[in-house]
């Protein structure tokens, strides 16, 4: 039973929540946060959108099928571990850039791994939510 207040608020909340989820994901290495929480926040954002507008609109807003997100997330996580193999070190050894960057401080393969976690969590939650909410 979507109300006007909910649907209007959701339209602004979705991008804000998504931005927040990415913020949570990226700061995770140094401050509370991380890919898992970030993925959950993003999933909650889309869940809200689903409640307000229904599954078809939510799917449109997501653009990509959540199942593709799962696969892509797993691929990202695994390939982040492969970089170290190229450098001749065991699988999933963290490799870090030397430069200091804003927010992230440094960029390394574990951050890419975390992005994979983010995508998998988002994809899994939305796969289940969409499947349940679809008539």
């Amino acid at each position: 039973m979507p109300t006007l207040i909910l649907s209007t608020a959701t339209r602004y909340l979705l991008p804000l929540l998504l931005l927040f989820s990415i913020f949570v994901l990226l700061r995770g290495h140094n401050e509370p946060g991380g890919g898992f929480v970030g993925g959950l926040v993003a999933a909650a954002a889309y869940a809200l959108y689903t409640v307000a507008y229904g599954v078809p609109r939510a799917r449109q807003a997501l653009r990509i099928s959540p199942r593709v997100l799962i696969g892509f997330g797993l691929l990202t996580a695994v390939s982040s571990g492969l970089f170290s193999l190229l450098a001749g070190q065991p699988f999933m050894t963290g490799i870090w850039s030397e430069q200091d960057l804003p927010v992230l401080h440094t960029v390394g393969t574990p951050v890419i791994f975390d992005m994979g976690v983010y995508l998998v969590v988002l994809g899994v939650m939305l796969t289940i939510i969409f499947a349940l909410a679809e008539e």
Partner: protein
Amino acid sequence: MIVAVLSGFVFSVIAPWIVRIGRGAAGWLIALLPLSLTIYFGSLIQVTSAGETLTYSYAWVPSQGINLSFYVDGLSLLFALLIAGIGTLIVIYAGGYLAGHPQLGRFYATILIFLASMLGVVLANNIFTLFVFWELTSISSFLLIGFDHRREAARRAALQSLLVTGGGGLALLAGLILLGQVGQSFELTTLLGQNELIQQHPLYLPILLLILLGAFTKSAQVPFHFWLPNAMEAPTPVSAYLHSATMVKVGVYLIARFSPLLGGTDSWFVLVTLTGTVTMLFGAGLALLQTDLKRILAYSTISALGTLIMLLGIGTTLAAEAAVLFLLVHSLYKGSLFLVAGAVDQETGVRDIRWLGGLGRLMPIIALAAGLSALSMAGVPFLLGFIGKELIYETTLHLPDASTWLTAAAVLANIAMVAVAGIVGFRPFFGQRVETPKAPHRAPLTLWLGPLILAGLGLVTGSLPGTISDTIIGPAAGGILAQPAHVELAIFHGFNTSLLLSVVTLLGGAGVFAARSLVRRTMPIFEMAANWGPETWYNMTLAGLEITARKLTDTLQSGYLRSYLLIIIVSNVALVGYTLVIENGLNIALAWPQIRFYEGVVAGVILLAAFTAARTRSRLAAVAALGVVGYGVALLFVFFGAPDLAMTQFSIETLTVILLVLILSRLPRFKTFTDKRTRNRDMIVALTAGGLMTLLVLTVTALPFQSRLTPFFAENSLTMAHGRNIVNVILVDFRGLDTLGEITVLSVAAAGVFALLKLRLGDESLVSQAGEDGQDATKRPEQTGLFHTEPHLIKRERGDF
């Protein structure tokens, strides 16, 4: 060297493609690989015959001491030559035998994997490299026996061989691990120098038993022999290659390889010699009773393997030489006879010897190969088999202990072998022509080339034994004895006891051959005995396992979510409670900490919400109350400095409530409630579980808090992993592999949920598909239902999912 070993794996990938492009010539093209391997290994003969060895090592898992290291000496080279050489002939032969078979590409792919695995086993220096390749041979053998996977008998035989040899493989692994720990090395070359240390170690006997178990299962020794005759379900080239010439001999190889390390003790002599002798006699006897060409050959292979094991158990210099020579003899004649059997089967459509006769004029070259091989098997002079048999008799005659018994056993087994040689090598080709389903004609080149070469080699080496004595036999025997061995082979050793025994053997064999149908009439007696044999134990074990698994599954996986929860919680309470109270002893310090006002409020809210969730009659209210509990706990996390945990908990709670609302909103109102007894039971379970948790927490907090992990992560998080948030650094870096596993599980779970929801449970089509396995069909739609508050409601409503 690594190229030589692994090339088979690479070529197996492109083999199906070669078959498609090469059509009729594919066999010849693919044979180029084993042929070049044969030439390569042949070129190494001059190294090993000079008494030298080669080692190669490539890093694999260096941190665990596991390397792809290879070791070439006379023993491994003999095996490598047999594997590659016979492999070449088999690949050519299969091109004719399976011509036009739609799965020929798959066949070649598997046989090349097998070839590479075999080379890996016999050339490995690292014992774990050896084990990995050992298991690969079992798996490729499984695939090849079950090649014709549409027949149930083939599938059954494949599974049987895999279970028997795989079970032995597990024992072998355990033995190798113990050996590696005792010897402080995983490299064979290092271990071989430590035989005194290992033989005096208390773990010597377990190591010996486990390794022998692996070897005996693989080499089909009594009582593990029964898988080999059944493995004859495989296409004949496979039977010739795997189940006669090569794979079944890796058990022999293993025992030969480890004999300098483990051999020479009393327990070795008794275990190995006794098993080998029993197997030798048993196989020889049963071979006489069979009528199927391939089964006769299979039982005589078991007998030959027993002979080899017996010789290795004896372990004298003569025995080592005899073992190596007989190994070569057997590979040549038995490989050839199997291929002959395949050609006869192919041309006539018959494998029963009672229906074969007079084929000699129709397939002269095949008959020639069969005749030569049979003469070698019977041990007639000028063929290698004669020298082999003489050496075996020499060995047993010169023993200090049990000489008479072992000689008698060897003579008996060989008499049977002579008769078998007559039955399979002569009987089908001479005498009265018997009508066969297919009119036989001359076999094509591909079918006679292999057997003729193998049989011809038996004649050449048998007439000129000097060609192999110092190049192949001597170095290989040296590998068994761990010291150089000089072998002098001759056709004629003078008039001595072993020559006399040879004559006795030939005459006795001819007698048994003449009386073969009389012998075969005793078959029913042995069949009755076989009903109590190891194959019956195997079947009973398998059936018992299936029944137990079914009962256990039916009990534990009833299909009701509530009974799953009940089982999980009760067993948890029982196990944790037992450990905590009985093993650990209750040790609780009830020091009341300072509780701040707002902490008390949150705790009160949690308790109230939990109580509401348990009492309410509305599902939505229960879900909301549970959400409150979750948020309350998350708040406690915030109070106690775990922001990461709190954040995650908040998000999870939110999404859980959303998910549950989505599910529950489409269920009708409760119609029935569980009765009072059930509710009381659930209450008791819940209170016990909660009480135990409380006890556990109190016990843990009563202990002084010590951890090596916390300071480790705190110190290294920033320096090693460039992150200040320890929790997240553990998740993505220190324990990143765990997280990778978890997100994979999560993905699989999502796929499961998606499939359950989208497959429209209760569809008739689904039920009929699932119904293939019998009575479960009617239960299935309920069983797979995810949300079982009330099954009868789900049944009515499941169309919605």
